[in-house]
């Protein structure tokens, strides 16, 4: 039994070292320790009623910052998929719809989700200043009974 436990520890240790090494050479490496949470300013977030108004008037763009599989499983109707983790691959498809003055609502899912916040920061760096973040976007939208779609981006 003792030898089994020793071997089990070797497996865990070797796997961990492989993971650390793979992350070190990955072009999409992530920090070893999770960075502290960014505190959102009130001007960075958009309340649900305002987002709904923007959606109804058709004057805003809704961007889904989650992974494409999540988008395909269900998203705010009319929103475009722009997964922050694959931003460079997807931005060109979305860019043609946007102008620097566009009203943009970024969303993901869950109160603690930071993907849309990261997307907002990224878009602002690129000169899109009217970006705001809908907190707990997908769940808030869906549970409010607002319009949703499923499927991949056309």
């Amino acid at each position, binding site marked *: 039994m003792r030898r*089994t436990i020793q071997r089990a520890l070797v*497996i865990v240790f070797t796997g*961990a070292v492989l993971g650390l090494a*793979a*992350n070190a050479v*990955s072009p999409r490496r*992530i920090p070893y320790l*999770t960075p502290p949470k960014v505190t959102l300013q009130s001007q960075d977030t958009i309340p649900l009623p305002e987002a709904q108004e923007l959606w109804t008037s058709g004057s805003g763009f809704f961007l889904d910052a989650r992974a494409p*599989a999540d988008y395909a499983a269900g998203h705010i109707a009319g929103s475009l998929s722009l997964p922050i983790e694959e931003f460079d691959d997807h931005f060109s498809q979305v860019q043609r719809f946007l102008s620097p003055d566009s009203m943009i609502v970024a969303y993901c899912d*869950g109160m603690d989700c930071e993907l849309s916040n990261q997307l907002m920061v990224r878009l602002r760096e690129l000169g899109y200043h009217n970006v705001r973040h809908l907190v707990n976007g997908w769940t808030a939208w869906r549970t409010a009974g607002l319009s949703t779609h499923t499927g991949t981006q056309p």
Partner: protein
Amino acid sequence: MADGGIINAYGDTAVKIVDLILRLVMGGIFILSAVAKIGNVQVSHGHITQISHVPDLGTFAQDVANYHVPPRELSNLVAITLPWIELLAGGLLVCGIWKRASALVITAMMVVFLAAIGWALAHGYDIRCGCFGTVEARKVGAIALAEDGGMLAMAAWLAWRLRDERTTGKGDKL
């Protein structure tokens, strides 16, 4: 006695076949689950649409953080290391190298996964399972709990059986 011996021999063979099947199934599940996380596999409408050699650990790290089980600062470290431990343990189990040790590692991981899902359900977190990386958008729930419960049972059986196999083997010779 001879008949009993034959029955025992058949019984032993049957159990060994079950062991082999469980070993391949559990090892296979762990390899698939690891590859889904490491390989950034995207699936749409049941079809694989993308397999990238560039891992999408950011999303998986977010999935880990959403459980609120490890301290928030460590969720990236878990996302970086966990898939490779899964891959190694699953690979060894399938190849039949250090079977018992890898079954033990898998059992321990299943206990942790089950506890994490239970924790998320108990706290009412409506979060993505993350069980197979970003392949599936499945949320934690009763189905994930049941699946993990089944897998824990299989892994525990293997950890127990593979040890027994060795000792029984010795016993048979006596």
